[in-house]
């Protein structure tokens, strides 16, 4: 799976460089986030600009990251959702859970 992981001060930016975030690769995103938490990170921005398609297991990986961040008094925020990806969050009511920003900069600045 293609991920760009970069520290932006105390926040970690994860850019998902895949067209699909699905049961084939979501496990990898989840375990990447787990190792960041183990390293002591607690604030994450996941940038989804290139993601055209998310399934329920992709959402599950993001939920996993969100719960882990919250448990550490951190946060996981999202940015760059294409409109159909955004609809997935609405369909599963997860748009009420995540803070969602249009751009990476806004998401990073919000911490």
């Amino acid at each position, binding site marked *: 799976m293609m991920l760009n992981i970069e520290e932006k001060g105390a926040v970690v930016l994860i850019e998902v460089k895949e067209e*699909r975030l*699905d049961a*084939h690769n979501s496990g990898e995103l989840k375990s990447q986030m787990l190792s960041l938490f183990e390293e002591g990170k607690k604030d994450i921005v996941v940038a989804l600009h290139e993601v055209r*398609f998310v*399934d329920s*297991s992709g959402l599950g990986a993001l939920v996993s990251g*969100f*719960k882990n961040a919250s448990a550490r008094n951190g946060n996981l925020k999202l940015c760059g959702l294409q409109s159909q990806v955004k609809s997935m969050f609405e369909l*599963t*009511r997860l748009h009420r859970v995540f803070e969602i920003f249009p751009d990476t900069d806004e998401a990073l600045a919000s911490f």
Partner: protein
Amino acid sequence: MNEKIEVDIKVPNQTRYLGLIGKIGEDIARTLKKYQGDREELAYHLNLVLTEAMANAICHANEGDPDKEVHVSISFADRVLNIKVYDQGQGFDVNSLPNPDFQNLEEHGRGIYIIRTLMDRVTYEKHAHGNVLEMQKTLN
């Protein structure tokens, strides 16, 4: 004239092939004649229900055994789209699944809910060497 399309697909029991099945669903959505709705939305939805159903077959039924096979059939006739996903597992009771718990954040348990929300009719039944999840939707 009645537009009739049938696509029958067999791939190894591996998540690697989810994208192929999903794309074929999208290609069909973009080809159908006289669809009144938003074609790109339909393309996403078919991609999604195919991906969800096939991921379930791989992960819950065929338990990741890479030597098993997943069989998916997509047919369209009389404006009804019918998708069947066959698995070789023990089966489960689709009607006793609760809706996802929207209050408590769970990592899993949204697949069948999504399928039910997007399709008109969903059944899961015994079949020759396993089970078949059948999903129907009328496309006008």
